[in-house]
């Protein structure tokens, strides 16, 4: 009876594993397509801006991540990832904050507004007015990041299912040494 329950559990786990593998293959194909779109858009941007205008030379000396991962443990040893995007960067305000008379003599300096805590958009590394293809590249790679988190979760689940399957197969062998 215990062996029958174990076999049923094994079957269900195996079906789930095969389903996960199929889903992984599908998501991977989409990720690869997004990344390829991104490269094509980067190439177009490079054509528009110049060969050396889109590359490591433009990286900022200070970077804050706009995208982070939230890792949660659904079951023991099973990690799931979720992409979290930080707040939208407030547009920079240019000019006086209030309608006020300007003083000719040196005024007491009003405190500068605190710079926004939201990280700077990496598009700004490449200039103020960037070609549309660079924005398209950014969009493609952002989609790719979401898919990467889903694929990483699926990979973890597949690894977890593998170890669960092995454990169940061992138990089954102990219960049915001849048949297993």
């Amino acid at each position, binding site marked *: 009876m215990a062996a029958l329950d174990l076999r049923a559990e094994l079957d269900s786990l195996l079906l789930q*594993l095969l389903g996960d*593998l199929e889903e992984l*293959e599908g998501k*991977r194909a989409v*990720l*690869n397509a997004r*990344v*390829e779109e*991104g*490269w094509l858009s*980067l190439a177009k941007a490079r054509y528009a801006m110049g060969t050396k205008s*889109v*590359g*490591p030379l433009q*990286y*900022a*000396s*200070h*970077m*804050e*991540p*706009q*995208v*982070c*991962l*939230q*890792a949660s443990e659904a079951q023991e*040893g*099973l*990690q799931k*990832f979720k992409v*979290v*995007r930080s707040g939208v960067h407030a547009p920079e305000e240019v000019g006086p904050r209030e309608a006020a008379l300007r003083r000719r003599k040196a005024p007491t300096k009003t405190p500068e507004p605190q710079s926004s805590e939201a*990280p700077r*958009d*990496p*598009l700004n590394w490449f200039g103020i007015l960037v070609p549309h293809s*660079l924005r398209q*590249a*950014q969009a*493609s*790679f*952002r989609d*790719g*990041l979401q898919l*990467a*988190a889903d*694929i*990483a979760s699926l*990979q*973890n689940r*597949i*690894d*977890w299912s*593998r170890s669960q*399957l092995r454990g169940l*197969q061992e138990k089954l062998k102990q219960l049915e040494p001849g048949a297993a």
Partner: protein
Amino acid sequence: MAGRGKLIAVIGDEDTVTGFLLGGIGELNKNRHPNFLVVEKDTTINEIEDTFRSLGSIPGSVAEANPSQHDPPLWDEIDSWQFLNRDDIGIILINQYIAEMVRHALDAHQHSIPAVLEIPSKEHPYDAAKDSILRRARGMFTAEDLR
């Protein structure tokens, strides 16, 4: 920083790293180490492996590393460029052709975090037969197990 969540690291060619940094994953300041490595033609396998294993204290400019351009004392610190030992990295994205160079290190990595994701590069399309995760899944069953 503690409540911010985990980072996504990337080890890849110039376009791959630039693209994902455009997506907003890059972290670099004077106190932290970069979470990316641009692999050039002259980047050594040791460097890639060291970066992969744990992350160290070299300023961001070393991201495009050329060993011959570093002072000998600095070069010793490059050994500590290792992503696996950082507890704030959730996923490592790596071009598959680079993963092939350090396949032994990838196969030895059995933990769920950080997860390693192999992605294609412009010159090398993705090959599922080479992926570490799928190879492990493929080798799961023998004919006897399925009887």
